[in-house]
């Protein structure tokens, strides 16, 4: 499904550039603002979201998918349903990156970070909307958990995409070497419970790159 691009927070874009709170000259900020404007105009966010009941083995009913890894299983324990999410900024985002790269290295670095912030904003918006719909039904939602977080194998990206037919429904493909293309894409799983569920921190605390990643927030 096509959706409107939510606004991209400058702070998040700066974070993806490795910013740690030091002064930034106005000229650079203007440059980033311009790219945020470009991304908000030209990126084509599309998302696929689907709800499944879970059976006793942890399989999403009617699918081939069983989420693997201790971390995601722990998150889903106490949940009777799961939601699969796939989101992408579309081929337009890849073209923007190719173009920026041919123009200048700095431009490409800035745009790459802006688009990273953008796809997160898209996922956050989807998650928030879902959370409030579920609250109306008296249900609770965990955080989102992606293949590659903790011990959930990266290879499950392909399985999630297959279940959602993400190539056909939103134009998100997985290459032979397991890379999502367009690059600015996310796949994730969330659990739904009848009782409040532990919202298990997503992001840095659950990440297998914790402590090694230049962007790691847990170091701050």
């Amino acid at each position, binding site marked *: 499904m096509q959706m409107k691009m939510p606004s991209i927070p400058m702070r998040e874009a700066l974070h993806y*550039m490795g910013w740690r709170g030091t002064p930034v000259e106005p000229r650079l900020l203007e440059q980033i603002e311009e790219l945020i404007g470009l991304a908000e105009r030209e990126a084509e966010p599309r998302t696929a979201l689907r709800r499944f009941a879970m059976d006793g083995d942890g399989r999403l009913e009617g699918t081939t998918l069983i989420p693997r890894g201790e971390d995601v299983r722990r998150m889903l324990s106490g949940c009777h349903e799961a939601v699969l999410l796939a989101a992408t900024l579309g081929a337009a985002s*890849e*073209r923007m990156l190719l173009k920026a790269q041919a123009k200048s*290295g*700095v431009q490409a670095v800035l745009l790459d970070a802006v688009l990273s912030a953008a796809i997160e904003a898209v996922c956050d918006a989807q998650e928030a909307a879902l959370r409030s719909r579920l609250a109306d039904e008296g249900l609770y939602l965990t955080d989102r958990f992606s293949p590659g977080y903790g011990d959930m194998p990266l290879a499950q990206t392909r399985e999630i995409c297959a279940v959602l037919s993400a190539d056909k429904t939103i134009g998100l493909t997985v290459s*032979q070497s397991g890379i999502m293309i367009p690059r600015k894409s996310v796949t994730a799983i969330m659990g739904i419970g009848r009782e409040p569920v532990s919202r298990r921190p997503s992001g840095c605390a659950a990440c297998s790159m914790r402590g090694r990643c230049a962007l790691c927030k847990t170091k701050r």
Partner: protein
Amino acid sequence: MMYTQEITLLDGAMGTMLQRAGLRLGDRPETLSITAPDVVEGIQRQYVEAGSQMLLANTFCANAHKLAGTGFAVEDVVRASVAVAKRACAGTGAKVALDVGPIGELLEPLGTLRFEEAYALFAQMIRAGVQAGADAVFFETFSDLNELRAGVLAAKECCDLPVFASMTFEQSGRTFLGVSAPCAAMSLSALGVRAVGVNCSLGPKEVAPILRAMREVTDLPLILKPNAGLPNPSSGAYDTTPEEFAATCAELTDVGAAYIGGCCGTSPAYIAALRGALAGRQAVWTQKRVHGICSASEVCAFGQGVRVIGERINPTGKKRFQQALREGDLSYIVSQAIEQEEAGAQILDVNVGLPGVDEPEMMRRVVTAISGAVSLPLQIDSSSPAAIEAGLRAAPGKCLINSVNASRASLDSVLPLAQKYGAAIVALTLGESGLPATTQERVDFAKKIVDEAQRAGIPREDIAVDCLTLTVSAQQEQAKRTLEAVRIVHEELGLETVLGVSNISFGLPQRQLVTRAFLTQAIFSGLTLPIINPNQRDMMDAIDACRVLSGEDVSCAAYIGRHAAVQQEKKDASAAAPAQLTIGEAIAKGMQAEARAIAAEMLKTVAPLELVERHLIPALDLVGERYERQEIFLPQLMNAASASGAAFEEVRRAIDQTGAQGEGKGPIVLATVEGDIHDIGKNIVRTVLENYGFHVIDLGRDVPPERVVEAVRTHSAKIVGLSALMTTTVPSMQRTIEHLRAAGLHVPVIVGGAVLTPDYAREIGADYYAKDAKQSADIAKAILSEAEERL
């Protein structure tokens, strides 16, 4: 002219029906032809009973990549699926088409799948389909025009069956990849398919305008295979009843919908309703109104005024461009394409012929890279038929070939290519006897080429004639003859005309004055496709003015839009005051223009090397230290590096003037390894290294090990830098190092990337691990100075 055709009723959804029968999401429905053939046959029999005259076999994703891991071979699935469909229509006269869907991976340049790999995957399916006795090949649900082109070419080269080609669009009228409906129809018609059209996407109401847009540019019958309306976001159910569906589809027979069926959400009930609604109807349509060439996203229509062809993708007389070709620096070439598009070019000429460069392979790579970043149609410019073919294969869309002349050799080698790929041609008016001397000779050559081209199956509207610009300072009388020939070819033969305009002024002072005068006279005479440098503002201005005078620019709107603001800009530009800065400050603040200006000023009194050693390097070192202390962050480091790079360019210019060796240190070969397209880290390293004065040969991303080996050999590289972002692509990094070592190349290898660690780097055989771009530069400096000491 009017066309009519009997309607062929296709079938409805297969996936929807299989899911109702219990198929799990994530399973490959095609394997059911082997594991549960009765279920598949039952569904297809219902379609035949409902009236389907052509069934699509259950082979949509039966390609080797999608079947990987299922334990089934392509040939087995295709054979079983075609057999099931044949059983379902036994005794009815209905036909069976091999159904071919997308591979599910993106092709280059956005993805990593090579065009020829996609071709091979399709060819395997098609050969199996032919063996199994399929009556046609039906491509559907594509969103990438080039992937579909690979399939159509495979079908045309592997069999004689009729080929159908259908794409999937969003309500915007474009596919996920930005392909427009007219571009799809124009390109696929050019390749010689039986019919083009739309499937899936949307309901019939929403598909109608997309089909009408296709009608404008093709004379072929159209395919119409929409969904059962739009899905309800919460329930997933489709909103159109069989009767509504059939009624809307029936109306579209008037725009030439001749192959009609249903996609997602449709069932035998929809096909039965279609049979009722289509009874007694024929598909009827009129001739196309628009002709021309196209990319995947833009049509460039001929016969509607002046269309500018940009000439800058060409190594002739351009040192920097030649270097880019020799080093395979595609990003420089792409930047030239972007610059011309932004300057207003409407077609890009692509010429990569240079001694020592594998022209067909370079043409393929350049055309592919350009098509990722610009949306203009291309003119493939080469004297080598192999290079022309490589360009035509790689280019998404319908191209112009530059050129074919009236000599036997040229006609025999180029016209078949134009026919096969459906390309338009530039007919260059010279022949065996050489250059034409008179107006009449030019016209005669043009007529000869047009005759031969039409006989080879190339439509007249796809021919543009180049009446040949000769240099006025050498052959003064020829300028008038060229113009006269342009007039005759345009007015009397009714053809498009091309001229390489700037040739006219070669050897004269103030060339642009003569070139511009010639351009305006030529446009007045009937020139429609001038080949110029669109970056020269006054040439584009002259074209803007000509469009006003010819009436092409209705109400002068474009002219006013572009030129009303110019006066103001000029005033603003003159107001900029030079800042009082040292070169170190300019670099620290990342001020490129200032750093360049200050360096140029200093070079009047300071020796080039002294400027580098005493000013630029210390300034960069300071910036590097601040980056390590986290006082500045990455964009600031890169801006500083770019500013020093601008100053370095001034230094290089000064050194060139003194005639001394101006080569940077190195060279260093950089690559993002095969299978990985995350090149941002590698690009950062490139920027930083270059601006420390290293000569970098950047091989790009998704680079096979063989190319790294070849580049190290060819350029005697001193260092190799490899980058990979993903755990899944680090093995490819290891393979690259192994290839280098196996080739006897013991060049130091630096590796970097998010998931690497120093230990991991050692494990895969790298010599150095660099955690970031700054450290790469430090390591490179250390390696090269150690090497110098050893000397």
